[in-house]
């Protein structure tokens, strides 16, 4: 039961602390390419791994790319001719859209542990900048570069939500959940 000073935990304060730490986030080495060919031409690159890393990124593309219920919404974010149909359908049989891959980020050694390759995208809001599937910037430079460490984490799977409302009925019936 140690004494403590007043503990009015401020939401605003917590948020600003997070913002601060994001600014100070460490940067790590990575390689960014628009294509396998560009990767192979890079004199500083590692041509043996260009193909396998591309395949690794491409394999994740459909699962991790941002998804849209209409082509218009996708085009608004990524530009005309920059969207494709995703290999998924909504529960009512509707199409799902996602941006085309604009490039990929190569795995490099990170603390002795190989960082996985992942697809990159380019949105209309920041042209020329590569962004990960989780909308983290990977910079605008191709070849060897440095990116924020958070950009190198494994991208999340973004599939389409088929249905909502499968929870909540008991709450509507009984009221408070508290005991």
């Amino acid at each position, binding site marked *: *039961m140690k004494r403590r000073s007043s503990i009015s935990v401020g939401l605003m304060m917590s948020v600003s602390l997070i913002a601060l730490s994001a600014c100070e986030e460490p940067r790590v080495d990575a390689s960014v390419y628009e294509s396998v060919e560009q990767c192979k031409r890079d004199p500083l690159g590692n041509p043996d791994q260009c193909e396998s890393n591309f395949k690794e990124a491409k394999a994740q593309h459909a699962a991790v790319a941002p998804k849209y219920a209409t082509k218009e919404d996708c085009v608004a974010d990524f530009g005309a001719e920059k969207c494709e149909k995703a290999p998924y359908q909504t529960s009512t049989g509707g199409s799902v859209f996602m941006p085309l891959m604009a490039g990929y980020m190569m795995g490099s050694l990170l603390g002795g542990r190989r960082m996985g390759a992942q697809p990159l995208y380019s949105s209309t809001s920041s042209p020329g900048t590569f962004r990960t599937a989780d909308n983290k910037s990977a910079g605008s430079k191709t070849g060897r570069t440095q990116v924020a460490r958070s950009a190198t984490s494994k991208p999340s799977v973004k599939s389409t*939500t*088929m249905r909502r409302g499968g929870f*909540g009925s008991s709450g509507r019936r009984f009221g408070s959940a508290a005991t």
Partner: protein
Amino acid sequence: MLRIPVNERPDLRRAASEHGLEYSANDGITGWDESAYYQFCMREIDEDLKAPAEELEGMCMEVVDRAITDEQVLQRLGIPEHFWDYIANSWRSSERNLYGRMDLSYSGKGPAKLLEYNADTPTALYETAVFQWEWFEQATELGLIPEGGDQLNDVHESIVQAFPFLGINELAHFACNYDIEDDKGTLQYLEECAQEVGLETCFLAMEEIGLNDHGQLTDLEDRAIRTLIKLYPWEWIMAEEFGSQVPTSGVRFIEPPWKAILSNKGLMPLLWGMFEGHPNLLPAYFEDDPAAAELVGTGSYVRKPMLSRQGANIEIVKNGQTHYKSDGPYSEDAHIIQGFQPLPEFEGCYPLVGCWLVASKAVGLCIREDKTLVTSKDSQFVPHIILD
């Protein structure tokens, strides 16, 4: 244990508005009464409440450990078979628990008796951890209560310290029923605690949760939910439409699935079955157990639904007469029969002592008073101090 009348702080209206609590000029802060406080001595706290609560917690873990492999017990608790392996796996893989509140009948004389364990969706967390502590600090400063007192209240620090050990390394989702302000407030407080240790969070209503084509639960941005800190009981989750998807959803829940065994009042007969005669337990039986008839035959007992909330559908029988009976929506459900240990009376009020456990350590007290023997959502929170 004493009940001591005291002046309220002069700026109660401001205190209420700072903390987002409901206030009216006539009744003060809804659910809160600081015109009195309870005073405990150190021995009562350490020997009668803290130590027994942690011992009971250990006993509860033994109950879980046994229950997960006992189909008969899982059946009796009303847990659908679909979730048996899921619950067992969550226990075997040591999924961490965050918090819970044990409700005890305690008068300062004789051992505290466990009435029930709100192990899944406990309420009055914010009032305990923040508002009660602020009262203690201000009341001390204003000279309303004696100098040199203390309060059993490490709830806030303990929650903040527990979060890094829950193994959340990506976005943490928080969900509850949006229509209930109290539930929302409690969960928002937990969210602030998570943010205090740098976790990224996202808050949504249970009914907003989606199900995607990979069988994952999703938020409103279609992101897959990895960790869900829910203020929504396990029995509701298991019964609802998306519930059947939960075991394969890849979501880590807090509280973990094995808490479904402890938050059920069937825990009380299970504890009595394993630890009969323990000083902090009351005799308790499933209603269909022949031994329950014996307890009923004594003429004094309490009948409770296994899954009721906030004092609903509780019946107290004293000397063969129904002494108290509350309404509620749970009357059709299975019941337990528990020995009757009335709450003590202090000036016409019946205090129920809630002992908060965070990461299984007893770290806080909350006392709620009612004018009846059954504490409910309309009971008043009364603060406490420790003074020797």
